[in-house]
């Protein structure tokens, strides 16, 4: 499971992936979302005195917690899809959203 986390720059380590772009005060992109942190990127961010960054990483999850989360998501989707019928297209959308929400849990 991917988890998004806001980290103080001092806790960031090489290999983590940025969940959101790092911007300077004027809104310019310093490092784009999705970039993997390298030693030189970390040094550059330290030089610019960036305080914290948003990173994503994979974590092993307790299967019971995962099942509970999936059930909660399914209940929310069942409510939204309560009158959408069971056409193949509609079910494909349901499944795509469920998978997306499971994959991008924050």
């Amino acid at each position, binding site marked *: 499971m991917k988890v998004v986390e806001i980290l103080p720059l001092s806790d960031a380590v090489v290999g983590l992936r940025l969940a959101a*772009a790092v911007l300077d005060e004027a809104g310019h*992109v310093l490092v784009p979302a999705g970039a993997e942190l390298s030693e030189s990127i970390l040094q550059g961010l330290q030089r610019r005195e960036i305080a914290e960054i948003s990173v994503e990483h994979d974590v092993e999850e307790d299967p019971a917690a995962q099942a509970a989360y999936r059930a909660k998501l399914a209940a929310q989707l069942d409510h*939204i899809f309560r009158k959408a019928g069971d056409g193949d297209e*509609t079910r494909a*959308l349901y499944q795509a959203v469920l998978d*997306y929400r499971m994959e991008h849990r924050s």
Partner: protein
Amino acid sequence: MNQLNRDQVVARLKQLPSLPSAVTELLASFSKEDIDISQIAHQIACDQGLTARVLRVANSSFYGLQSRVGTINEAVVVLGFRAVRSMVLAVGMSGAFRPEQCPGFDAPAYLRHCVAVGLAARAIAPLAGHNAELAFTAGILHDIGELVLASNFSPQYVAVLAYRKQHDCFLVEAERDVLGMDHAEVGGLLAETWRFPDSLHEAVADHHAPAGAPASSLADLIHLADAMAHALGLSRQPEEMLMPLDRTAWNRLGMDQAKLATLLPQIERSMEETCQALSG
């Protein structure tokens, strides 16, 4: 008696205050071959409120610019005329209505839904061979008939919203049962009154029944974008519900679950910032 008829709605639409001149010019530009872009940019720039909101959208991460644009002319140079035209139409038309006089109409939820549909439409457009900027505008404007009804027929629309809540039905069903017309039909009448280009007209009028629209229209795309936005629950309305997806639209777009999986993240990535840029 809450029933409306076509003539009554058209008469009210003709009494609407005129659109900002820049918006009218831009609408007309769809059917013109020789467009004086610098003159239109000047007209936009004369409307400070419009300019400020357009520049907020242009500078949001939605367009991912490396440096900020400070004028409409710069925006046209950097983003292109079509992108700026889309933004001005989206911002200028949505701002022409005052739905807050309709108790129960959730304007923030309306904006959130329209932005989500705009972003979804923009993401789908390249797969369907449509212009992404026009698709974004169509998404922002697709439910404009709701704004017309909430701001011009407020007492009747209050009854629609109450009926919907009571019956837990689709909004279009509540509108048809209470008013005898729905927001897509009313949006279509507005599109005729304001002379929308055909592509926007079809997106507004046919997004709930796309199979009846030409395959080349934006109706299929907006129908799917609407469903994706609802499925993600982005309006945050407790009564949000999805209508069955139209098979013809799905097939004509060549859609499948794997393609959907690549589109969904693109919607949420720009959602909050675009809502902020388009509000107020």
